[in-house]
């Protein structure tokens, strides 16, 4: 029991941490590829400087994303060996493809990109960042295809007590991944765009490198707006898919104990009492939950108690209710963050389109800076809702989390690894933020020269080439 709790804590902590960096890597690779494309196609030097400056932040971030990803791959076997035995056949395949198709691609071409500025033709160098970008996006697809199997298992048959794959195409065209993947991609775009606009806003506030950061802001805010809107649109598809495939998660994320009336109202606020299985002080908006779940203003949404009764019939006695409060509030926080992102990026786009960035009010620039964290809040709460809302299952309807843990790994062992990972992750976070702040403070001009450090010989050669 103790090992189970610790293993869950460790998985949650390492995955959440990993996912601070992943969306930034995916999104930044893409936006930097766009910047470098403008440089190569139109020959505008300032876009090269942009690719280099934001590229610095990208690389600092990418390194942490890569190394924290290694744990993710090993952790299934280390902490969740019974899970690995049970699903390896289906779950392992996308992971192996991810390594073969995506990891090799991004790790090779990121190297080419870093070291190739002076050694490759412009076009080949541009191809390297695009291939890196494609690699990161492919990587996300395969790991989400694996995750989607946990949410909505398809393409398998149970044989000798194991889930064996019998339809690969079904696994990779799982309805779940078809909505989850674009959701994550647009979220990644928004996450990186808000970093770019937030940092740019800060520099505009300080009146440093104004031209450079105006241009960066413009490019960033457009992607921020597209990402924020699209993530909401896809999120709407997801909710409709969720009510079909994981009604319990949907009910929990609504704190809906009883099956709703028709049309179903959306609960904006509620004080939830999981012990008594009831809510108080609810604030409801009529019809909205029907729209979220079915895309129309009619239809009732099944409640927790009814689904619990139904699951007991199907799976036998047990408690199939996830932590309702966590699921409910994480969903609301995600929506709140998303709404703020849309409003802020829409106003920013308006300012940029009207060429009024120079007159932007300091409060807005400060708000844009702080909104760097909004997509991270949305990413975090989105995943908490997805994973906590699936409990007690690790694979929906097939295997519980309690059955998934490694029998041979003891509590003290997991405690050791948990503390060790937390320690190194904290240290990494401090170092990373320190480096981020340093690069941002120095700004684009110094960033372009900084890579030759203090060696005058280097610097001359560097300039001669570039």
């Amino acid at each position: 029991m103790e090992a189970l709790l610790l293993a869950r804590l460790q998985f949650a902590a390492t995955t959440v941490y990993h996912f601070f960096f992943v969306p930034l890597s995916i999104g930044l690779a893409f936006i930097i590829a766009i910047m470098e494309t403008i440089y190569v196609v139109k020959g505008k030097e300032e876009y090269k400087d942009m690719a280099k400056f934001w590229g610095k932040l990208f690389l600092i971030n990418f390194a942490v994303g890569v190394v924290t990803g290694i744990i993710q791959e090993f952790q299934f076997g280390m902490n969740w060996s019974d899970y690995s035995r049970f699903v390896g056949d289906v779950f392992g395949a996308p992971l192996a493809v991810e390594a073969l198709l995506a990891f090799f691609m991004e790790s090779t071409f990121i190297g080419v990109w870093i070291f190739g500025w002076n050694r490759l033709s412009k076009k080949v160098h541009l191809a390297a960042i695009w291939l890196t970008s494609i690699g990161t996006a492919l990587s996300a697809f395969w790991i989400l295809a694996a995750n989607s199997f946990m949410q909505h298992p398809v393409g398998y048959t149970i044989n000798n007590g194991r889930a064996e794959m019998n339809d690969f195409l079904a696994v990779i065209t799982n309805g779940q991944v078809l909505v989850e993947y674009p959701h994550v991609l647009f979220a990644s775009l928004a996450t990186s765009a808000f970093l770019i606009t937030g940092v740019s806003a800060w520099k505009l506030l300080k009146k440093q490198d104004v031209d450079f950061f105006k241009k960066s802001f413009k490019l960033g805010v457009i992607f921020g707006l597209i990402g924020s809107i699209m993530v909401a649109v896809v999120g709407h598809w997801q909710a409709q898919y969720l009510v079909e495939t994981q009604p319990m998660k949907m009910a929990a994320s609504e704190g809906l104990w009883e099956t709703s009336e028709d049309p179903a109202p959306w609960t904006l606020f509620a004080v939830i009492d999981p012990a008594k299985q009831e809510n108080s002080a609810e604030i409801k908006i009529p019809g909205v939950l029907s729209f979220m779940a079915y895309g129309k203003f009619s239809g009732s949404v099944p409640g927790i108690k009814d689904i619990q009764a139904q699951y007991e019939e199907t799976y036998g006695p047990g408690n199939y209710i996830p932590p309702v409060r966590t699921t409910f509030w994480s969903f609301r926080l995600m929506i709140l963050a998303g709404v703020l992102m849309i409003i802020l990026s829409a106003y920013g786009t308006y300012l940029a389109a009207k060429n009024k960035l120079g007159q932007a009010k300091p409060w807005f620039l400060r708000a844009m800076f702080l909104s760097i964290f909004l997509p991270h809040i949305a990413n975090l709460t989105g995943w908490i809702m997805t994973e906590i809302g699936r409990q007690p299952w690790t694979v929906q309807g097939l295997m519980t989390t309690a059955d998934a843990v490694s029998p041979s790994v003891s509590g003290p062992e997991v405690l050791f690894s948990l503390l060790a990972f937390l320690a190194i992750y904290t240290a990494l976070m401090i170092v990373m933020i320190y480096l981020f702040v340093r690069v941002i403070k120095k700004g684009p001009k110094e960033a372009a020269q900084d890579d030759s450090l203090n060696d005058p010989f280097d610097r001359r050669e560097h300039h001669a080439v570039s």
Partner: protein
Amino acid sequence: MLSLNELWFVLVGVLFVGFFFLEGFDFGVGMSTKFLAKTEGERRVLINSIGPFWDANEVWLLTAGGAMFAAFPHWYATLFSGYYVPLVVVLLLLIGRGVSFEYRSKVNSEKWKKNWDNVIFTSSLLVPFLFGVVFAGLLKGLPVDKNMELNAGLFDMVNLYTVTGGVVVTILCLVHGLMFTALKTTGDLQDRARSLAKRLLVPLAVLLLLFGAMTFFMTDAFKVRGGILAVILVLGIAAYVIAGALMNKKRDGWAFAMIGVVIVLAIASVFTALFPNVMISSIDPAYNMTLYQASSGPYSLKIMTIVAFTLLPFVLGYQIWNYYVFKKRLSEKEHLEY
């Protein structure tokens, strides 16, 4: 004809061979930053010489892990949960190592660099050592029970045999790394790399033979696969002698390749000795886990085979291209990214 699960056993072996061959030399270069480089400039040359490569080299390990998960879920589950603590340490080291290359040059302070240098050295030294310990443990056998669970005590994992295996792998990586340095640098640094590699040849040969003898007496490997292991041993000795001769003639590229052949043969011999087992039980041979018991269903393996053989040529193609693009020797006079 190989069955699909046998083919995947070979492929997992190939991926580990690729990992030890490629990441092996960047581990070696990482180790040598501590004693081969005499100045900050030389250290930067060493780190930059593996700069464009180490990350992709490490992906061979990740792919091997992913392939084990997909093709042999029981093997992956038993081994990774059984070797829990060593793998935690490996992960911590790989995390530190990965960021150290990227972060080291970001701040121009001696203390900052020294700290990252320590991370590079320690991780480059200990990761191959721990993998050597793990692989030697696989050969010797581990307490795998009838439920396929591995409850290994400290001395099941760490003993004279496995530690010797760890040291052998570490020194082998170091020599490979020194030959890579000889191939990628010029002048004084190159000379020092060559001469250190030459000085290590005899001690490494003694260690390799010692480990071979220990394997003969302490494991069943030669009893089960004596014939083919003898052939590999002879080939290995031949490659080693040729590597030594090439080093003397300063044929760095070929010497590097020949040490690589020794690494390939060493790792291949582990998989050959295991076959058809993937885990050898020290409790009861009846609990040995064979690749047939450990493997995924035929459908999964078929899909994976198609995917792997479609993608591998591209992967190999662009990795080779990567080495070709950055084939130039490095010196301090050049612009160095790291």
